């Protein structure tokens, strides 16, 4: 490409900026010979880097040709990403240095794709770390290792060691170490005595303000982080000696990539050595920098985050060099980075989440109060009922003065809140939740209580008008269910609202026609099902059997003594009897079932019902459909205990295609229904025509994972889920979703009426 063309492209990429012509030409010149494809890829990065830093962008262009001798085009974006991260964390100089020196180093990390992928160890390490932490932590791949206290971030792949066992161990160490910072309170250091408090806004960390107050915050931050790493190491040695023993054998490459001329680097390099070595090393290494008593505190695990904070100014003053830039020393892989902003954000999110839960619990508690008390609490809302919700000032609420501090103080003192002069005592669940909240965040913002009051007020209102709506829609209630979000391996609380509805009864010849059509099959089914009506049971007074019937024997003996002819029915026999099965059929009523599928579904239900009547198993039938999480629908056709009469038949006839297939809520509801049933075997049989899918983001993996989880919940509740899918071919996701042997697919819909009873028969005998 001509230089003019290249420059022109550059200008258009950075517009409206108009950089100096010479600079542009200087950096673009080397690309004249480069082939267009490569140019294109390189230029693509300009709009990414330019807005972040112009100098870095020029540097990138200067270094790119050299870098591309080592990197493939595909690796380029990753390299740029790392450079940008470094820039954001440690400033321009370091990023430039990375671009100049780092290609080989960077490569050595990327190369040899024989590394270990996080994805392949996550299944094992997620429950591991959750157990260790006793907390629902998440694991997420990232370019850097760090934690925001609710998620642990680690590189997507590790190939520091040649051997994947060692790479695995490093992953394990990374997660454990990052949890260690959380467990040791590294992020929540409070101001040691005599230290400035800074303006401590709600949700902002003292530590961040403190470290930012130095002229060179990265240096202060790294000092603190290193001291905390020592504390974590000591803590882990005590807590998880097995791990630390194994880790001490890891051959960490302690190559020193950066020039060691400055004091700070020497300091970091030497202490890092101590972090990978054993305690005595650490002592010798710390000695030049700490007083003996400080060393003791750290090495005996008595130091607190405040101790580390207290040491920062002193170490900083010896390590800081005005005439020389501080070039951050790369942390050890398991140390990762200290990212206090992420911690602040995560804690805010966590606080809101717990706040919401609190509001739900509290609102529920409000609604259990007597009408009078509740009215009293909510009286302010009624006054200006025009507005929705309460303003904080609307409610005169006096928090028990100790309320905010009870966490540290007397755990046994009951929590008390006073709202509008009404004293409220917390029930145990609410109380323990509140304490958890106080432990975590120090105090409970009053806004949560006011919004709970608001919510309870709405609830009361809704309760009042509920009666008038009747008749318009045959809704028989709404139930709220959580939904599983596999991306965060946790539930979205109260995510779906499932409306329970009645199907209209329609008079139609459908049932009669079906029975005519399948006359022969029905008879055969009835016969087959009759044969299944059995389970093991002891029957008494038999002529022969497995055991003696003592009651009968006694009677017979007394009879003999009384001179009466005695009976010879003196045995107990194990007999097949009493099937104790309850089953719910969930029928997909999504739009895609229109046409033949719908007819086949209904016909199958008719035949099933006929057969089930002979068998005597309890069964229920529900249809499901809906749109979005706010309106999932479950249609009642037949309750478990309802008899198979005209009404049920008419409702079966009126099953028709409706909207979408959100499978989670109906399965969860069926699970709940069956949990209330006392039966030896409880089954949920889902009839559907394909993947779960809703109008909103309930699609693909998300939908499959939620369905799978709903089925798992059923299994945990001791219920067997089974799925019959009408599809042309079996798909991989089915086995994943239902588990092997828990589903069957029927490729010819016309065979369904025949197959379904067959399937049920094999399932339950």
């Amino acid at each position: 490409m001509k230089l003019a063309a290249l420059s022109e492209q550059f200008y258009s990429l950075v517009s409206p900026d108009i950089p100096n012509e010479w600079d542009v030409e200087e950096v673009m010149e080397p690309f004249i010979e480069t082939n267009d494809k490569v140019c294109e890829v390189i230029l693509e990065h300009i709009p990414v880097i330019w807005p972040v830093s112009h100098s870095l962008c020029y540097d990138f262009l200067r270094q790119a040709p050299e870098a591309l001798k080592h990197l493939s085009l595909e690796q380029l974006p990753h390299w740029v990403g790392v450079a940008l991260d470094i820039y954001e964390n440690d400033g321009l100089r370091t990023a430039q240095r990375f671009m100049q020196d780092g290609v080989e180093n960077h490569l050595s990390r990327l190369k040899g794709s024989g590394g270990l992928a996080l994805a392949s160890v996550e299944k094992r390490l997620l429950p591991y770390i959750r157990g260790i932490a006793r907390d629902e932590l998440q694991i997420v791949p990232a370019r850097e290792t760090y934690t925001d206290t609710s998620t642990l971030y680690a590189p997507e792949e590790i190939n520091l060691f040649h051997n994947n066992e060692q790479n695995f161990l490093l992953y394990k160490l990374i997660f454990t170490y990052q949890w260690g910072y959380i467990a040791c309170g590294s992020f929540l250091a409070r101001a040691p005595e005599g230290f400035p408090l800074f303006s401590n806004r709600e949700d902002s960390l003292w530590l961040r303000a403190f470290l930012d107050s130095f002229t060179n915050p990265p240096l202060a931050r790294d000092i603190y982080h290193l001291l905390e790493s020592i504390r974590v190491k000591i803590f882990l040695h005590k807590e998880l000696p097995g791990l630390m023993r194994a880790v001490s054998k890891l051959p960490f490459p302690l190559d020193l990539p950066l020039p060691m001329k400055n004091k700070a680097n020497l300091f970091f390099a030497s202490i890092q050595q101590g972090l990978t070595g054993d305690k005595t090393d650490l002592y010798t290494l710390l000695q030049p920098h700490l007083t003996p008593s400080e060393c003791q505190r750290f090495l005996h695990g008595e130091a607190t985050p405040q101790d580390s904070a207290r040491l920062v100014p002193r170490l900083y003053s010896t390590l800081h060099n005005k005439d020389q830039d501080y070039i951050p020393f790369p942390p050890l892989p398991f140390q990762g980075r200290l990212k206090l902003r992420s911690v602040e954000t995560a804690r805010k999110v966590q606080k809101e989440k717990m706040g919401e839960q609190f509001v739900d619990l509290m609102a529920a508690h409000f609604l259990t109060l007597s009408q009078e008390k509740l009215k009293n609490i909510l009286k302010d809302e009624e006054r200006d009922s025009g507005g929705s919700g309460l303003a904080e000032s609307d409610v005169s609420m006096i928090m028990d003065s100790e309320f905010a501090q009870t966490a540290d103080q007397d755990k046994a003192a009951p929590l008390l809140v006073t709202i509008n002069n009404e004293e409220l005592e917390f029930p145990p669940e609410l109380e323990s939740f509140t304490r958890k909240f106080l432990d975590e965040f120090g105090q409970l913002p009053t806004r949560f209580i006011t919004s709970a009051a608001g919510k309870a007020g709405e609830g009361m209102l809704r309760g009042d008008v509920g009666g008038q709506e009747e008749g318009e829609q045959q809704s028989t209630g709404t139930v709220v269910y959580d939904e599983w979000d596999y991306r965060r391996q946790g539930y979205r609380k109260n995510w779906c609202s499932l409306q329970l509805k009645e199907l209209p009864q329609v008079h139609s010849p459908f049932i009669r026609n079906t029975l005519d059509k399948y006359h022969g099959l029905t008879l055969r089914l009835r016969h087959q099902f009759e044969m299944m009506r059995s389970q093991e049971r002891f029957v008494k007074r038999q002529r022969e059997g497995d055991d003696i019937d003592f009651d009968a024997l006694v009677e017979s003996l007394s009879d003999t003594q009384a001179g009466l002819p005695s009976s010879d029915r003196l045995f107990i026999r194990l007999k097949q009897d009493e099937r104790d099965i309850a089953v719910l059929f969930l029928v997909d009523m999504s739009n895609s079932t229109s046409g033949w599928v719908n007819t086949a579904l209904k016909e199958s239900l008719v035949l099933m019902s006929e057969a089930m009547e002979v068998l005597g198993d309890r069964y229920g039938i529900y249809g499901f459909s809906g749109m979005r999480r706010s309106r999932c629908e479950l249609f009642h056709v037949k309750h478990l205990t309802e008899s198979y009469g005209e009404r049920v038949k008419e409702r079966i006839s009126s099953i028709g295609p409706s909207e979408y297939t959100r499978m989670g809520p109906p399965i969860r509801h069926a699970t709940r229904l069956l949990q209330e049933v006392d039966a030896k075997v409880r089954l949920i049989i889902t009839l559907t025509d394909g993947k779960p899918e809703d109008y909103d983001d309930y699609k693909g993996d998300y939908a499959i994972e939620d369905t799978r989880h709903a089925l798992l919940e059923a299994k945990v509740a001791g219920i067997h889920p089974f799925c019959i899918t009408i599809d042309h071919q079996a798909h991989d996701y089915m086995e994943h979703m239902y588990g092997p042997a828990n589903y069957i697919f029927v490729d010819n819909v016309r065979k369904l009426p025949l197959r379904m009873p067959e399937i049920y028969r094999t399932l339950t005998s």
Partner: protein
Amino acid sequence: MKTVEQRLEEHLITAEPYYLVSGTEIEIALSAYKNGLPLLLKGPTGCGKTRFMQYLAWKLQRPLITVSCHDDLSTSDLVGRYLIRSGEAVWIDGPLTLAVRAGAICYLDEIVEARKDTTVVIHPLADDRRELPVEKLGELLTAPPEFMISVSYNPGYQSVLKDLKPSTRQRFVAISFDYPLPDQEVEIVCQEGGVEKELAHSLVKLAGMTRSLKESGLAEGASTRLLIQAGKLTQDGIDIHTACRVAIIEPLSDDPELLAALQEMVSSIF
């Protein structure tokens, strides 16, 4: 008609059983006993319910008659039945009747496992009537003040989901058991498993970790009992990693991923 004398002494607990008190459970139980109220013990498996009953029986110096409930348990299994002895029909008291007659403590373990028609026989015994009708004998026994009935169940068992009927439930003084606090559990594991404090401490730590895996699919974590068993194995020279695997990890789950994660915990701790 004859009735068979049954030996009660064997149900009497002579040596003080080791029981570490965790709260006010003893006071409550003693007061319930004094007032003739039945006890309901709930809690996860292996957390000391049975041991507590043994201790209580010892403290009260009453025989303890334990019945493990199952779904084939019939009323006659509890109340009694006729047997034939040398051509003669003799009546044998069931454990419940025996306990009533002798003023003993009758402990129905895992009561939810029994069918509901069986559990109703304890109804008249468990309210202020304190009576047991023995229909086949045509007798109505009134329990002496020394008699006590107590039942236990594990509300965490999701697979069973048979719940107690409210009419059964609402007759009892309920004491809720949970795993002991860490320090106490350490002491129990030392005592019962015969291990050093340090090892007990690590075992308890492991148990704590397994108990927080509900979301990951482990309905119930390792019980105190499992820790004790692991401790005992190590006393016989079995290496701690193996002991944990066979006595704690494997009994908890069959899921390979979960087992692997649990195994990682073990290798971290020990």
